């Protein structure tokens, strides 16, 4: 399954149940582009178990403000719609899989 691009209208429903990992990013952010292939791969690896989504902070400023994202990339983990963890900056892939595995 490809990574899901989340918009303001779709966001709450998308993360409402189960485990989700959402990458807040922007097109002009180099470190975000570094993280993109990692997120793509994890979307495939966790298919059917966790939702892996992306939020473009330029297009979805409301979502960035709502979650207090003040640095990109920021990856936020949700369980049944509630934020349970977040990671700021580019981390090694194991950092994201450890967080997901801990929630699943």
């Amino acid at each position, binding site marked *: 399954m490809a990574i899901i691009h989340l918009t303001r209208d779709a966001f709450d429903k998308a993360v409402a149940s189960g485990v989700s990992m959402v990458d807040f990013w922007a097109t*002009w*952010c*180099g*470190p975000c*582009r*570094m*993280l993109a*292939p*990692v997120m793509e791969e994890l979307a495939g690896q966790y298919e059917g178990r966790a939702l892996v989504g992306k939020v473009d902070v330029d297009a979805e400023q409301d979502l*960035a403000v709502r979650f*207090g*994202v*003040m*640095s*990109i990339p*920021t990856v936020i983990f949700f369980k049944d719609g509630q934020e349970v963890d*977040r990671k*700021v*900056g*580019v*981390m*090694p892939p194991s*950092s994201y899989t450890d967080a997901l595995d801990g929630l699943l």
Partner: protein
Amino acid sequence: MIYDIAVVGGGPAGLSAAVQGRTRGKSVVVVSTDIRDNALYKAHQVDNYLGFPRTQGAQLLTQFRSHAETMGVQWKAGRVLNILPTGAEFFLGVGSDMVQARSVVLTTGTVQAAKLPGEQELLGRGVSYCATCDGMFYRGKSVIVAGRSAGAPEEAAYLKGIGCNVTYTAPRRPEDLDADIPFLKAARLAILGDSTVRGILADGQEIPCDGVFLLRASMALADLLPGLTLEDGYIAVDRNMSTSIPGVFAAGDCTGLPLQVSKAVGEGQVAGHRASEYVDRHSS
């Protein structure tokens, strides 16, 4: 493009590695902040570099740089925020830009590992290391730039230019700080806030703000490349200048004592050589 070798840091070790890489026909990019951040640049006089007695540090470094440039070394200005190994290659985040390379030579110089009180807890919640990445989140808000690198005044001007209310703090006012950016002289900082930054404590004085940009010359090594093995705060290397991460080499002051130019140049030479061999082995 994907470079064969990305060198992090433009001091004697980095430039020596870069020249060695070019000698072996490799494409090389050196990522470096302002030349004034370099320890050698600040050395008034160097007396222990063989063949060049009583040389000014800045002059020696400038000569090293022009040597690297004549060898076709590419230059990328900026601070490396983090390095991500993907197996076949490395991604280096440089400010809001990115560099790709098949191998990496770390020559960061000595790097401060200690963080400010509140820095780690509030990272991404008001604390930022990158003005061009995160500035837009602070438009119309009050930010404090903690200038700990020569390029920090320029980044403060960038933040002001996009609409942030900037105050600059450092132990000493930099000469090239914009005249209309307020300056706060302070040496000891702590960051205040629970879920987000609400201010800083600057030499005991509390200043409210929405964001703090900590602009050091180099990121802490543990943040720069998570998983890198350190020993006593320095990067652990073997005789080949290999680090604990395959394809990543290190040289110069960041690998430990003595903090001297000859040692940096020698280690850089080995690192550039071994990085070139690594690229040869992995690109066939």
